[in-house]
């Protein structure tokens, strides 16, 4: 292939390469973690090694096609190591596995540079040297060991195939592999070359029934018995082939923007469907009124209304299906953690077991993409601040191994994500002292335990005595919390000193569709996300009080500040002198009453962002298009609650109820 650019759209392929490689690197990571369990056991799960070999082989092939030479080179060298492992020519040692983990990271860095450009990562040459040196030992010893091996004789008797035919086959396989390498098959269509390889395998298998048995045993667990080249070389091809048939055909990659576009179009369809239904029923009524209209017309009107009902059903199903398409399992995020935990635990000299539950819990793609960072930060926090060193744990009568649990499950219309550790818990005394030293609170402030825990969300707050490269780098819990809030999630911490800490995040299933309470304020219909609504009430104006110049009501003994939405948004609506309609919204134990003109019921709405041309508007988080085509703005409960509590109208002590 001379100039690859002539034959395919390079950008698209690079993107494909990036996505595919990202997945493969992820699988390499988890396979390496599994493999680590076999260190020094002298036994190996050949399936893991094969899977690693295949992944690297694919990366190598794709990188070659795109002329990412550095990636190709490292993938090739790593592939060789797995080849040695697979052929049992190399024992699996701790040093080896660390070198492989490192190789995976080098590869990741090289891929990133290849795809996105930028500085080549440092230390690659050094790594290659170490890797080569490492591999060389076994490559040469393997040849020495090979000779006197007794098994070779067994093989002779097992497979009485004449040498000539084996040699011919070997040459054929080599030719095909070389050809496949030269072609560097497009990842989209690897089946063509694999078919050839498969044919070669089939041809070989047809040589003799005994050889077939032997070849199969080579594919399966015991490569030791079968050092002969052909079967081993063919094995990955055969398994690749199977994988192509089973997995690849069942999923396709779709740009999320195309789905968004589709969702928009469906929204349009929904609106038009409503109009058609309206027209159908109006027509029916009109014809009924006139009475004299011909039978034919009446029948037509009936047809129209039936078919519009059908249209309605189909449209709803399409809408639901598209929403489902956007859902992906949270496991995509969780998969990153075993490696992080392993590396960090090692670096900190801690022993940590990671348990993952509910990895198949589905969430909207947007949330899954955004939630990774905050989760990672929390996991790092657990490792760094939560879990104690093994010796400390033993002294406290706990198992040496600390445990971090990641859990995800659905609860109603929400997904709950939990990260918990059985570590030291949050040291309330230390948090308090630190907060006093930083001037966040006063020495005389009396705070509940819960309020003290809340202090860790103060920007720049860290109880770590020394700054490590794990956490305590200034990216604080405040950022984590902010990110979760931005995703319309609720964030909660529960900590028992000496027993551990649990972070709980409640996330909406999807950011795109929510339940909303519709309210009218000065001729405009606003939507309030229902998950933030606690209750709605009609209250006599005489029950209103003022505190520090702000209006409040007392609700079951708790003082709740009010915001008049019409005035906050400067809509100029007159106040009702007798009654006030109040929607109580709450976040994190803080409540605010929103004064509106009337309640208009609940509704499912599709959230659309306001154009960035408009910029950020305080109190508005987006908009939605209603069934009749009109627009309703969505009230940003977070910013309203923040403004009620941040403006000095209410002091924290007064509203600290939980």
């Amino acid at each position, binding site marked *: 292939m001379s100039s690859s650019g002539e034959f395919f759209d390079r950008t698209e392929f690079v993107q494909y390469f990036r996505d595919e490689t990202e997945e493969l690197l992820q699988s390499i990571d988890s396979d390496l973690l599994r493999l680590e369990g076999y260190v020094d056991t002298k036994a190996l799960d050949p399936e893991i090694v094969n899977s690693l070999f295949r992944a690297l082989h694919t990366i190598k092939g794709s990188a070659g096609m795109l002329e990412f030479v550095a990636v190709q080179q490292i993938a090739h060298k790593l592939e060789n190591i797995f080849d040695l492992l697979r052929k049992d020519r190399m024992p699996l040692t701790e040093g080896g596995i660390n070198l492989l983990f490192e190789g995976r990271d080098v590869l990741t860095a090289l891929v990133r540079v290849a795809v996105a450009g930028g500085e080549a990562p440092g230390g690659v040459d050094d790594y290659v040297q170490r890797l080569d040196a490492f591999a060389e030992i076994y490559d040469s010893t393997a040849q020495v060991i090979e000779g006197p091996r007794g098994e070779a004789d067994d093989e002779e008797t097992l497979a009485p195939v004449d040498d000539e035919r084996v040699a011919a086959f070997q040459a054929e396989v080599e030719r095909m592999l070389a050809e496949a390498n030269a072609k560097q098959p497009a990842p989209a269509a690897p089946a063509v070359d694999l078919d050839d390889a498969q044919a070669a395998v089939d041809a070989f298998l047809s040589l003799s029934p005994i050889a077939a048995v032997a070849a199969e045993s080579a594919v399966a667990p015991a490569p030791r018995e079968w050092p002969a080249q052909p079967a081993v070389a063919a094995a990955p091809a055969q398994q690749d082939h199977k994988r192509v048939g089973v997995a690849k055909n069942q999923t396709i990659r779709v740009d999320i923007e195309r789905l968004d576009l589709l969702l928009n179009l469906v929204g349009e369809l929904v609106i038009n469907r409503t109009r058609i239904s309206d027209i159908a029923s109006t027509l029916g009524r009109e014809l009924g009124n006139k009475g004299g209209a011909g039978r034919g017309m009446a029948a037509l009107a009936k047809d129209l209304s039936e078919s519009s009902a059908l249209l309605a059903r189909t449209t709803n199903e399409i809408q639901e299906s598209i929403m489902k398409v956007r859902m992906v399992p949270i496991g995509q995020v969780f998969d990153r953690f075993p490696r992080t935990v392993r590396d960090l635990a090692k670096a900190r000299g801690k022993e940590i077991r990671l348990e993952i539950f509910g990895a198949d819990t589905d969430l909207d793609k947007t949330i899954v993409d955004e939630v990774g960072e905050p989760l990672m930060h929390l996991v790092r926090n657990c490792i760094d601040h939560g879990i104690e060193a093994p010796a400390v744990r033993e002294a406290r009568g706990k198992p040496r191994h600390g445990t971090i649990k990641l859990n995800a499950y659905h609860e109603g219309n929400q997904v709950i994500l939990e990260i918990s550790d059985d570590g030291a818990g949050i040291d309330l005394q230390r948090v308090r002292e630190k907060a006093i030293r930083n001037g966040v609170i006063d020495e005389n402030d009396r705070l509940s335990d819960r309020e003290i825990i809340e202090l860790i969300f103060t920007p720049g707050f860290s109880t770590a005595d020394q700054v490590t490269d794990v956490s305590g780098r200034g990216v604080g819990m405040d950022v984590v919390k902010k990110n979760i809030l931005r995703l319309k999630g609720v964030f909660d911490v529960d900590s028992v000193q000496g027993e551990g800490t649990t972070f709980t995040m409640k996330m909406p299933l999807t950011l795109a569709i929510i339940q909303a309470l519709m309210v009218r304020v000065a001729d405009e219909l606003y939507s309030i996300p229902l998950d933030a609504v606690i209750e709605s009430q009609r209250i006599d104006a005489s029950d209103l009080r003022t505190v520090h110049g702000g209006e409040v009501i007392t609700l079951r003994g708790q003082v709740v500040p009010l915001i008049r939405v019409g005035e906050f948004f400067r809509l100029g609506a007159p106040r009702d002198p007798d009654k006030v309609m109040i929607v109580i919204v709450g976040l994190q134990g803080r409540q605010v009453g929103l004064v509106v003109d009337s309640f208009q019921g609940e509704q499912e709405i599709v959230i659309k962002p306001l154009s960035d041309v408009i910029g950020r508007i305080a109190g508005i988080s987006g908009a939605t*298009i209603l069934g009749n085509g009109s627009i309703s703005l969505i009230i940003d409960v977070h910013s309203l609650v923040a403004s009620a509590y941040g403006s000095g109208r209410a002091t924290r002590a007064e509203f600290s109820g939980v």
Partner: protein
Amino acid sequence: MSESTQVVSFKLGPEEYGVDIAQVQEINRMVAVTKVPRAPVFMEGVINLRGQLIPIIDLRTRFGMPRAEHTKNTRIVVTEIGTKRVGMVVDSVSEVLRLPLDAIEPAPDMITGVDTEYIRGVGKIDDRLIILLDLAKIVTGSEKRELETTDIETAA
């Protein structure tokens, strides 16, 4: 024949303006605009354009002219600037003109109404003057300034 450019021309008051036809996506009659509270003053609101939310700028207010009553001639010119779609309310849309490039002159310092910052040039065709607008600046440029002032207001 010299090179030329095509512009969509429209009116604000007595003056005639033009925008590059490549930036115009469509021209619509006036529809109900949903007000966005606390947005910059020239931001008329948002409209629903076949399921998409399009912000609407009142071009008169944008240029510091007095607001006008909407008439049957009032139009929303939906433009596409980069990836952003913005609708602009104008008094009326006149026509699509072909302007020879050599008929376009740089904006004179003194020009009626509009800040020269938003002007790419002035086209002369017969005895008409078409003020050619730089849409990107109208949408982004000083709207930031407006937003900043809104913020200050909010903070106060």
